[in-house]
Structure formats: structure tokens, C-alpha cells
């Protein structure tokens, strides 16, 4: 049985990654490989570099990494390629960086673009100012989402962002303080369930629920409820399931077919019945490219929430 490792940059408290963990488990079952999920406990990138080196020392059959920071990970990823371990990059980072790192493919979608995509929708709704609730400010990449959104609507990124911390009580208090302080704020963007839930409570308490334009990254039970009742315009869904599932499927197929032809491997994954069934069940739609595969941004709105809702936080 071949062994694959997925190394993320997320601290293990981040709920979004739970979907990825679930997806690699299922992919492992579907393709008969063992997948180890690894992450730096505190989200420290330097620790992540060590984990990548560790994967090299362990001699995995394939390694999936996030490009949390191109420069930091460059030399450690080289340790993998030196050992001829196939690498697939996921989540953050760009396809160019992925290619420069010598990865065979990239599955994901950069933070800035996701933020910008959401911002474009907001702009269409006439939003001119906003508040970005960042519960993960210690990871600098998270600000890219806020920046993308801000630049799309033409707002001042620095003035519109708060470092909310991860404690729901604190988030609630800080958001409500900000809104109180900036009563003209036109919209709220939250970066995930951790910040979305308390923010929803603030809006509810202030009587702004449904009135204030709000969108969020990622999904959870609570968020899908909000989408249904209209208090959340949409959830920006990166389809994390795909980011975990597809690389495992690709690496496993490459190994089992002993092929390095990416197109053929992609096709085989696409054609796999188990895979197709999973994607259909969870309502996922990967954008297969010639080399890279896009996983988003999918916008989950009132219209398509039905399919997603059941699995929010688990497979969606």
C-alpha cells in the first residue's frame, strides 16, 4: 500500500481543514492508499518546513503541500523533489509558484482572487465600504482575502480590517465596537465560521440581521442557515473537499498506473466511478485544466444551498 502525506500550514484548531482531513480519508479509502495529514500545531510556517523535510526523510510515495509561503517552503520542497517524490500543491499560492517548485500540479485558488471575486459581487450590490473580520491575523496570507475584497469595491483595506482573535466572545465585542464606531459601514466579510458566527450574533443583536450586507468564507451549519434566511448573501466556497481528494486520487493513480502522463491520470480520476459518486453526492464541481485543477471560488447562495447544506463543515 502506498503512503501519501498532506502537509498544511493551518493550526489544528482551524475548522475549515476538517473538511480536507475528511476528504483525504475518503480518497484514501477509494484509492486504497494511506494518507497522513500533518500540520504545524500553531500554524508556524517554519515548523511546516520541518514537516516537509520530515516527509522527505520518511520517503512517502507522494506529498501534497500548501504553498503558504513560497520562499519559506522552497528549500524544503526541494528536499522532496531531490528525492524524486512527486509533489502536488494545493490551497494557497499560485500556479506559477507551483510550477517553479517542481510540483506536478496545483489544486486550489489564491486568497487574493477569492477575496476579489467576492468583492466584485458586493460591488454589483452597491457596497462601498466594509468590515473584514480576520480571526486569523497571525497568518499574514489571510489579509490577502480582505485586500482583494477591498480593492474590488475600492475601500481602504487597512481601515476596514480588524484583528479579531479567535475567541467568540472577543470577536463579538470587537465587531460590535467597530460597527458602533463606524456606523456607515456597508458590509461585513468574515473569513470563516470562527468569525462568522459571532458576527451574525452582533448583527442580530443590533437589529441589522438581514439588513447589513454580509458574506463569509467557507461553510458551516450556522452559515448555511444564514444563507437560507438571507442574512448571509453567500459563502465563498473553496470546495476544500476537492483540494484534499483530487491530489490523493492523482498521486494514487500515478503510482498504481506507473504513469507520469498527467492528462491520462486526470482522465482516469475523472472516470473513476467512486470519485464521480462522491462528487455528485456532495455537489462538487472541479474545473479540470490541462495541468492544474481549480477548486473555486464557488459561491454558495440561497439558490444552491440545498445541496451543500447537509454536508457543511464535514464534506463541504
Amino acid at each position, binding site marked *: 500500500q502506498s503512503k501519501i502525506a498532506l502537509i498544511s500550514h493551518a493550526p489544528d484548531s482551524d475548522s475549515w481543514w476538517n473538511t480536507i482531513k475528511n476528504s483525504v480519508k475518503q480518497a484514501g479509502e477509494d484509492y486504497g492508499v494511506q494518507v497522513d495529514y500533518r500540520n504545524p500545531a500553531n500554524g508556524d510556517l517554519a515548523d511546516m518546513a520541518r514537516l516537509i523535510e520530515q516527509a522527505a526523510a520518511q520517503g512517502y510515495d507522494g506529498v501534497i503541500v500548501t504553498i503558504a509561503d513560497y520562499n519559506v517552503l522552497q528549500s524544503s520542497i526541494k528536499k522532496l523533489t531531490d528525492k524524486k517524490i512527486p509533489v502536488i500543491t494545493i490551497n494557497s499560492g499560485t500556479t506559477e509558484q507551483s510550477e517553479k517548485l517542481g510540483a506536478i500540479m496545483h489544486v486550489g485558488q489564491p486568497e487574493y482572487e477569492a477575496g476579489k471575486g467576492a468583492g466584485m459581487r458586493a460591488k454589483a450590490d452597491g457596497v462601498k465600504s466594509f468590515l473584514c473580520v480576520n480571526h486569523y491575523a497571525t497568518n499574514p496570507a489571510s489579509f490577502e482575502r480582505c485586500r482583494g475584497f477591498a480593492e474590488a469595491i475600492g475601500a481602504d483595506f487597512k481601515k476596514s480590517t480588524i484583528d479579531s482573535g479567535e475567541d467568540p466572545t472577543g470577536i463579538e465585542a470587537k465587531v460590535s*465596537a467597530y460597527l458602533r464606531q463606524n456606523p456607515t459601514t456597508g458590509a461585513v466579510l468574515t473569513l470563516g465560521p470562527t468569525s462568522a458566527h459571532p458576527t451574525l450574533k452582533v448583527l442580530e443583536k443590533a437589529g441589522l440581521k438581514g439588513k447589513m450586507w454580509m458574506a463569509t468564507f467557507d461553510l458551516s451549519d450556522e452559515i448555511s442557515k444564514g444563507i437560507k434566511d438571507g442574512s448571509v448573501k453567500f459563502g465563498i466556497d473553496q470546495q476544500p473537499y476537492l483540494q484534499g481528494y483530487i491530489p490523493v486520487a492523482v498521486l494514487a493513480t500515478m503510482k498504481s498506473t506507473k504513469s507520469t502522463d498527467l492528462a491520462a491520470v486526470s482522465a482516469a480520476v475523472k472516470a473513476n466511478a467512486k470519485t464521480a459518486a462522491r462528487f455528485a453526492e456532495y455537489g462538487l464541481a472541479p474545473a479540470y485544466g490541462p495541468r492544474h485543477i481549480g477548486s473555486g471560488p464557488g459561491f454558495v447562495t440561497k439558490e444552491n444551498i440545498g445541496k451543500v447544506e447537509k454536508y457543511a463543515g464535514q464534506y463541504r
Partner: protein
Amino acid sequence: MTPQAPNPAPAAPTDDRVREVSPLRKLMSRPEFGALAGTLLVIAMFAVSAGGSGMFSAEGVVNWSTVAAYLGVLAVGAALLMIAGEFDLSVGSMIGFAGMLLAIPALYWGWPLWLATVFAFAVALALGWLNGWLVVRTGLPSFIVTLAFFFILRGLSLAVSVIFTGKTILSGNGDLVLRDMFATDPVISFFFHGYTLTGVFDALARMGVIAARDDGTALATGLPKAVVWWFALTAAGAFVLARTRMGNWIQAVGGDANAAKNVGIPVARVKISLFVFMAFCSTVFAVLQVADAGSAAADRGLQKEFEAIIAAVIGGCLLTGGYGSVVGAAFGALIFGMVQIGIGYTSIDNNWYRVFLGLMLLIAVLFNNYIRTRFALGRR
């Protein structure tokens, strides 16, 4: 309230070796006074820099006092434990774990909410006991023992929630919605959910004293239950420390465990009970937060152990044990909570948030210390 007995001294007031000292100075020499002064300074600073921002409106006050209250609940336990010379680093992890212990039975095993709550308390207290027992039994520093639980409990919250539910944030399961369960269970709701004194707030709103919603009810719904717990636990903790035998034992154990043992104080029992009490405070925090947020999550309570210690130290507790005040710790929580949230009411650029947080803390504590030593009597 103070570690010293509050009663008047029996010594003759006309002792030739006692100087006249004004009663005001005497008042100011009480250990809480420094923390109170620090609090007033922080209020003054925000009154100047964020006066018109609504920070001191009813909603504003409820807003930051909720943050202070959550922290304050933990600070009571942390202060008592610190006075007894120990630390508990597993507080934050315990909060996450206790939330899971409540949510999983309630949502996935079909238990009634009250039973799930009792279960969460029971398991948490047992873990607190284990913490204390290991510290007392092995003689290892509590720092190391509770550090192990810091990791273990955080890991368990994650593992348990994934195993039983496949998710890491639990707010409902099919028809069962945690928020509704809290709203409908009368007992649990009374203790942990929502607000109290809503009538008073609404009346004030109708009188135009505080801001109202369109429907005439107060914008600030009421006094959050967390604040009530904060006051209640602080009062209880201060009472125990100042007025009971146990309070005397706590101070003695922290001041000199060896001396305490030699005069027959059951050192192990005192320490273990305080670890259990700390677990109780953590669980109260967890249940309040689950009720408030309507969900439990594996990452709840991150770094709360740290903040609880900060609050206790700001409030004048000695890190080395033996001296401190529960009321001081409550002020410490208030200072820390107010500074954390208050910065959001000022027009300070968010990039500077931490810088100001650090500076304000330093100023508050320096001032507090200045007052304390300036007016301290009979101490050096």
C-alpha cells in the same frame, strides 16, 4: 477581599511607636486599591480617546464587560490557585473539551441538555482532580503537569469531535439545534443562557436613559449571565479567601508549603480542591460560551489560561504564591478586557492594535504598582 483580616487591630491606638497616618492613605494601601486605580486610569484614558464612540453607552458597557466577565470567571480560579502557589495551563483546553462534553451527548447521544451539562461538569471536575492529584503526588511543578493536559485535552477535543461527529464545530444535528435546546431548557437556560434584568433595561430604554430599538426595547438586551457569574464567583472567591478557614489555608500553602504542612494543614487537599475549582470555573466559561454562541468547537478557549494568569497578576497576585486578592483579579480581568475591546472604539489603526494593547497594559500596571507602593503601609 484582602489577604489580611479586615478587622480592627486590638492594639492600643496611642502606641508611642505608631505615627499618625491619614485614613485615606490607609484605604489606599489596601491591595485592591492599586487595581482599582489602574481600572480608573484605563477608563479615563478611554473617556478621552473614545469618549463619544459609544463605548460608555449601555450597549458599549455590556459589550466590553461581557469580555471582562468571561475572563473574570477564569481569573477567580486562577487567582486562588496562584495564591496557593500553583498554575493551571490546561484552562483553555478544558474550555474546549468541556464544550465538547456538553455538545456531543446533547446532540449525538440524545441526552437532555441538563444531563449533558451535568456530565460536562462531572468529567471536567474529575479532570481537575486528576491534575491536582498528579501535581501533589508526583511533586512535579504544576506548570509541567498541566502543560501535558494543555496538549492532551486540546487534542481530545479535536479527536473526540471528529470521531463522534466528523465536524469540529457543533451547533446542531438534524432537528436538534443547540441554540434552541438552550432556549427551551428552563434550568440550564436560567443559569447560563441569555440575559437577566431585561425588564430593567427595557424600562430604562422607555425612559430614554439608554438607547432603544425600533420596537421600544433596549438595544442592550440586559445583563449577560456571564457578568452575573463573574460577580457571583468573585464574591464567593473573595469571601472564601478572606473569611474562611480554607482561605487561610490557601494563603498558608502558597506562602510556605512546608510551614503549612508542619502546622497540620492538609496541603494536598487544599491544592487538589483548587484545581477542581479551576476546572469548575473553566466549565462555567465553556457552558456560558456554548449557550451564547450556540455551538461548541474544538478550538474554543485558546490562550485563555494565559489571559487568566495575566488578569490575576495585573490584579496583584504574586506569581510565586502566597499573596493576592480575588477582587484585584476581577479588576485585572476588567482592565484587560476593557483595553482589548476599548481599542476598537478609538480611531487607532488596527495594525497598531497589539502595540497599544501592550502599552496600555504596561501603563495600567505601572500606575497600579505606583499607587500600591506609594501608599503601602508596613511593607517594603
